[in-house]
């Protein structure tokens, strides 16, 4: 092996003479930088949420909290809008995920059956919606016509089924349920319903878990449908409450200098603390379950890639 390497080395172009260790070192350096670039902002937000806002504003917080305080969290946890948003998000996420998973599994199964007349036409029609849709305004008008504005249905229904997920489900059934299995069941007198509910669904556990994960994260993080379809602040999901606190307030406060200065400064001071705390409180749940979710997402990425 060494002699071959030696013989080749003389003819290699310059770029290929970079030793393998050089590649390894470069990779480690770049990846470590990337890891730090992802982790440090998150870490900084955690320590800033526990620090005296004056120390944060003065640039004295780098590695450890300065002037340790729980004030921000106390205020956040005492706020009814945050709790209501949290409750709404739990409700919307649960309902939307259940609907999505049911539609995708049942629809994907039906479309996977080669003996379904019209299957090809239906699939093509569905795929068309992937690349061309009516757009935001007609969809809004449809939701409005259905009388869904300001109801939970406007949040959970319009985005329930993604074509891509439906295709993943269809491929899953095509690959994992051999025709022989169904034929055998049919010979034994099982109807399509019976086969679906007692054989296909139990065998599709990994698909169901994957779809549930994808939709849980998607629905928990969604804000746009709520923004356009909900007017009643009591129905806002957490993301919309967050948006109002994190993003809107900042802009409002820079132009809104009314009131006496002292109270304004105080509001600003605590406001910053609350923002850092809100980011932590709302990110923590999803990052805490991430190691568990990641496994399934990787599987999903694989499914998608295999399909491609």
């Amino acid at each position, binding site marked *: 092996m060494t002699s*071959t*390497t030696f013989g080749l080395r003389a003819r290699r172009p310059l*770029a290929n*003479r*970079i030793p393998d260790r050089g*590649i*390894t070192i470069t*990779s480690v350096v*770049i*990846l470590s930088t990337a*890891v730090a670039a*992802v982790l440090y*902002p998150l870490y*900084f*937000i955690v320590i*800033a949420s526990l620090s005296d806002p004056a120390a*944060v504003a003065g*640039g004295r917080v780098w590695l450890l909290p300065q002037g340790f305080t729980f004030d921000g969290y106390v205020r956040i946890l005492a706020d009814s809008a945050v709790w209501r948003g949290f409750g709404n998000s739990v409700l919307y996420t649960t309902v939307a995920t259940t609907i999505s998973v049911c*539609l995708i599994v049942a*629809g994907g199964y*039906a479309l996977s059956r080669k*003996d*379904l*007349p019209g299957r090809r036409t*239906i699939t093509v029609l*569905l795929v068309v*919606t992937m*690349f*061309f*849709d*009516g*757009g*935001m305004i*007609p969809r809004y*008008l*449809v939701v409005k*016509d259905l009388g869904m504005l300001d109801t939970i249905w406007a949040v959970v229904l319009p985005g*329930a*089924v993604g074509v891509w997920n*439906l295709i993943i489900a269809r491929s899953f059934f095509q690959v994992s349920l051999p025709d022989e299995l169904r034929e055998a069941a049919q010979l034994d007198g099982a109807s399509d319903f019976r086969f679906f509910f007692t054989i296909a669904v139990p065998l599709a556990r990994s698909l169901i878990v994957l779809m549930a994960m994808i939709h849980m*994260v998607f629905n928990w*993080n969604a804000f746009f449908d709520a923004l356009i379809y909900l007017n009643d602040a009591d129905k806002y999901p957490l*993301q919309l409450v*967050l*948006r109002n606190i*994190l*993003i809107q307030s*900042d802009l409002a406060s820079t132009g809104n200098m009314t009131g006496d200065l002292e109270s304004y400064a105080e509001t600003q001071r605590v406001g*910053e603390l609350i*923002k850092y705390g809100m*980011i932590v409180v*709302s990110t923590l749940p999803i*990052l805490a379950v991430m*190691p568990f*979710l990641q496994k399934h*997402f990787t599987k999903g*990425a*694989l499914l998608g*890639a295999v399909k*491609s």
Partner: protein
Amino acid sequence: MTARTESPDLTLTAEATAGAGAVPASRRPTMPAPAPRRNRLKRVRRAWQLYVLLAPTLLYFVVFKFWPMYGVQIAFRNFNPVDGFTGSPWVGLDHFRRFISSFQFEQLIENTLLLATFNLAFLFPVPIVLALMVNHLSSRRFKAFTQTVLYAPSFISTVIVVGMLYVLLSPRSGLVNHLLGFAGVEPIFFLAEPEWFRPVYVASSVWQEAGFSMVVYLAALAGIDPALHEAARIDGASALQRIRHIDIPGILPVISILFILAVGNLLNIGFEKALLLQTPLNASESQIIQTYVYEAGLQQAQFSYSTAIGLFNSVLNLGLLLTFNWVARRFKQNSLI
């Protein structure tokens, strides 16, 4: 004469009958046509339970995808809520003309295309490079750690990422401006200065989304036969050569599919973030077609006008998708359609 006239008549009838008899013979191959139709009906009837399973999904698509698609016609009408999609008066291409001749038109197109292109130019290659590097490393623990950390931000919502940008980029108290302060740079109000909108948008997209695509590429890389690497190593191929001649060709089909998908959504993706990052001060760069549709349609209730703009965007997008799909097919890579 009568006989004469009759005889041709007779022959005609004979011919006609012969012809009539011949017709089925000549059509024999297509004769079974009615049978499959009956068969098909039977098959449809036999599959009724499958249709029941499919029905809710189909209903969803009809209501939330095809009905809005049908409603796109208000782009050519003056929509009013009383007359609905089909009853409102027809105005032809008026809204499109108004949009194209409006003073924002050029700026909107420019902002949209520049943002989408910059975003793609960074967000597309970065995950490939990261995946190749992670794949190259031999330490399993470092690999897993890197993968988990880089993947994490894709679980964080756009609202929170933008919220983080607001606090970290704050001119008075933000981390970034404190860091810049060390380098002697005056504080920059990133979200108020139009020229900073695109860099902030693209950088945060890479921060948030690169890890997700990286995992897809890593999955594809894991599918490459290790024997190829072993053989190449025995033949004296360096790491770089193996990356170039084994890894990259191995994931090329995935790259090509993801590229077409990315281009197909070029003008749609990331609109939520643009909306969240938009401030009145940076609107000259952050106003893209989609945010303008939102503003004109939902905030100012110009339904027809904004639908026309949205349709314009969709058609532009579809054109891009088909073009790139065609290019991919020409290069004999996997194409989507």
